C-alpha cells in the first residue's frame, strides 16, 4: 500500500529525514517511535504534502501512485489521512459543511455521485457516536473552542467520515487523559480492516497498549534504526531511548 524508498527531506535547508525506507501492507498497524527531534512529525508532514518541506531524494508510492508530486487534496482523495498533532481551529468554517465538501470532492475525484443529505447525516450520527463526540460539536466551527481531547476525537471522527486507506496518527495521544485515549483508540480499532492500514506515531508506549501494532520502528536522527514487533515498544518504555542512541553511535 505504501512504499517509502530512501526518503530525504529538508526544511529551511536543514536535512531532517536522511533516508527512510518503509513498506506498509493493507491490514497492518505500524508504530513509529523515537525521541523528540528524530523526524517523526516531519515524516507525517512530508507524506501529507506540506509544502514547506523539500524532498531532496527518494520515492513514495501510495497505492501504486507516486504521491510526492501530488497536491495534499489529491493525496487525501486517494485515501491518505493525517490526524494532526495540533488540530487547527478555523473560526467560521463549519465542521460538518467542510466535511461534506471534502467527501463530495473526493467522490467527484473518483467519478462518484455526491452523497445525499440523508446518507450524510446518518453517517455523521453514526461516526460521531463512535468517538463519543457530541453532535453539537460536530456542527460547530472546526475545532473552535474544543478542548484538547475533543480536538483529537474530532480528528478520529473526520477519519471515520472519510474512511481512508492509510491513516497516519501523529502523536494523537499527546495531552490525552486515559478516558480520551481509550475513546480515540477504540475509534481507530473499530475502523481497522484488512483493507486499510494505520501508522501510529508516538513518543510513548502507552497508546500501544490500546492500539496493538504489528511492527514497531524506531526513528532516530532521520533514519529508521531499529524495527521489531510490539515487544520493542515495551523495551523502549522500560529502557528509554538512550540505549538506541548508543547502539547507533557505536
Amino acid at each position, binding site marked *: 500500500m505504501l512504499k517509502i524508498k530512501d526518503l530525504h527531506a529538508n526544511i529551511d535547508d536543514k536535512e531532517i529525514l536522511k533516508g527512510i525506507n518503509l513498506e506498509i501492507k493493507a491490514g497492518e498497524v505500524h508504530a513509529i517511535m523515537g525521541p523528540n527531534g528524530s523526524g517523526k512529525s516531519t515524516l507525517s508532514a512530508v507524506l501529507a504534502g506540506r*509544502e514547506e518541506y523539500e524532498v531532496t531524494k527518494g520515492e513514495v508510492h501510495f497505492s501504486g501512485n507516486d504521491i510526492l508530486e501530488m497536491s495534499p*487534496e489529491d493525496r*487525501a482523495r486517494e485515501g491518505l*489521512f493525517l490526524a494532526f498533532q495540533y488540530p487547527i481551529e*478555523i473560526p467560521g468554517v463549519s465542521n460538518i459543511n*467542510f466535511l461534506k*465538501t471534502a467527501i463530495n470532492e*473526493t467522490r467527484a475525484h473518483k467519478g462518484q455521485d455526491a452523497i445525499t443529505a440523508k446518507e450524510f447525516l446518518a453517517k455523521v450520527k453514526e461516526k460521531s457516536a463512535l468517538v463519543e463526540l457530541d453532535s453539537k460539536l460536530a456542527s460547530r466551527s*472546526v475545532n473552535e473552542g474544543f478542548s484538547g481531547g475533543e480536538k483529537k476525537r474530532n480528528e478520529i471522527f473526520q477519519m471515520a467520515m*472519510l474512511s481512508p486507506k492509510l491513516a497516519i496518527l501523529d502523536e494523537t495521544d499527546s495531552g490525552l487523559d486515559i478516558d480520551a485515549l481509550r475513546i480515540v483508540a477504540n475509534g481507530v480499532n473499530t475502523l481497522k480492516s484488512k483493507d486499510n492500514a494505520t501508522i501510529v506515531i508516538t513518543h510513548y508506549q502507552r497508546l500501544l497498549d490500546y492500539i496493538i501494532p504489528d511492527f514497531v520502528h524506531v526513528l532516530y536522527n532521520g533514519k529508521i534504526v531499529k524495527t521489531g514487533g510490539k515487544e520493542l515498544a515495551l523495551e523502549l518504555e522500560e529502557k528509554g531511548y538512550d540505549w538506541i542512541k548508543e547502539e547507533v553511535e557505536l
Partner: protein
Amino acid sequence: MTTTELTKKDMLLESLNELDFSNEPQFAQDLRTNAKKALENLEFPTSRTEYWKYTRIGKIINKTYGIQHEASDANIDISSYLIPGLDADVVVLVNGFFRADLSTIETANGLKISSLKKVIQESDGFIKDHLGAIAKTETELFTALNTLCFTDGVYIDLAKNAVIEKPIHILNITNSDQLISNTRTIVKAHDNSAVKIIESFVNLQGEESFTNNVSEFFLNPNSQVEYNKIQNKEGNSYQISNEQVYQRKDSNFTINTITLQGTLIRNNLNIEVQGEGCETNLNGIYLGEAKNHIDNHTMVDHLKPNCNSNEVYKGILDDQSVGVFNGKVFVRRDAQKTNAFQQNNNILLTDDAVINSKPELEIYADDVKCSHGCTIGQLDDEALFYLRARGVSKRSAINMMITAFVKDALDRVSVPALKAYIDTEIDTRFKN
C-alpha cells in the same frame, strides 16, 4: 492649486452646463445657484487633503464625459440585474433618469415612491424644505457637483406608522460609455415607519463611466431604515457616493455597503445622530481585484446621549488592488452613555495588495463605551493545509475561509434573498 486643475474643473462644469434646469421651480434653481457658487471656491482634492490622502481622483477627472439630457424611452432588459428570489418594488434609473416604464411599483399604504424630478416640479412641501438640507454642498466638491446638476433620482416617502414589508430595489443603471450621471435619492421616514431599501449600481457597457450620486436620509422618531448599497459595475467604472443621514430620537439606521466590483470607488458616509436612544449600524464588504481602488470613509457623529453605533467592515484585496478604510466616530460632550464599536478587518491575498486602515475615535463625553480596531492579515496557511489535507481543493478551502471571514458583516444584511445573492457573488468570485 494649479492652473491645470482649474481647467479640469472648468471643463467638467462646461459640459454639465449644457443641462437646462430653467423650468424648475424657484427653490430648486436657488439650490443649483448656491451649488454653483460653492463650486467656485472648491477645488478637486489632491493627496495633500487629509480627507483624500489615500485616494487620487486623477482617473476620474482626467477624462471627458458625455451627459444624457433627458430620459430615453429605449427598452432595456433589466432581468439580469434583479436579485433572484427577491420580491420587491423595483425602481429603475438609467443614465441618471427615473424610468417609470421599466419600474414595477405596487406602492403599499403609506408609501410613496416617485421620480425626484417630478416631485421637484410639483414643489412637494417636504422636498422644498429638505432637498439639500443635510448634503454638504458647501464643503464637498462632488456633493456640490451633484446638487448643481443631478438630473433625477428617487424620492421615497414613508407616512407616519407606515411599516413597509416589501423591500424597495433601486436599480441605478449606466448603459452608455464615457457618461457622467448624477442621481439623488431622498428618503423621508416619518414617525414609527420602517423600510428596507436596496440600491444596486450596475452597468450594461458603461465603460469609463462616472456615477456621482448623493443620498439624503431623514429619520423621524422611532423610524427604521435599512439601506443596502450594492456596487457591482463591470469593466472600468468610477463612482463617488455621498450618503448623508439625519437621525432623530429612537430611530434605527442600518447601511450595508457591498462593493463587489469597481475600478475607483469612494463612499462617503456621514451620519448625524441628533436624538437619544438611536441605533446606527454601518457595515461593509469590499472585494478588490486587478488595480481596483476602493475607499470607504464613514463618520458617525453622536450628539445626544444613550445611543449605540456598530460598525463592521471586511475587506478582501486581491492582485494589486488598494483598499482604504477611514472610520470616524465623534462622541460629543452631551452624548453620555454612548456605546460605539468599530471594527475593520482585511485579508490581503497577494503581496501587492494594499490596505490603508484608519479607525478614529474622538470622545468628548466621559461616560461612554467605545472601541475600535483593525486587523490586516493573510489567509491562515495552516488552516488552508488542514482543509486540503482532508480532500478539499485549494480554491474551495480559500472560499470557505473567505465566507467565514465576511460572515459577521454579511449577517447584518436582513433581506434573505439579498444575503444569498451577495454570498453567491463572493463565492463565484473566489471559485476560479
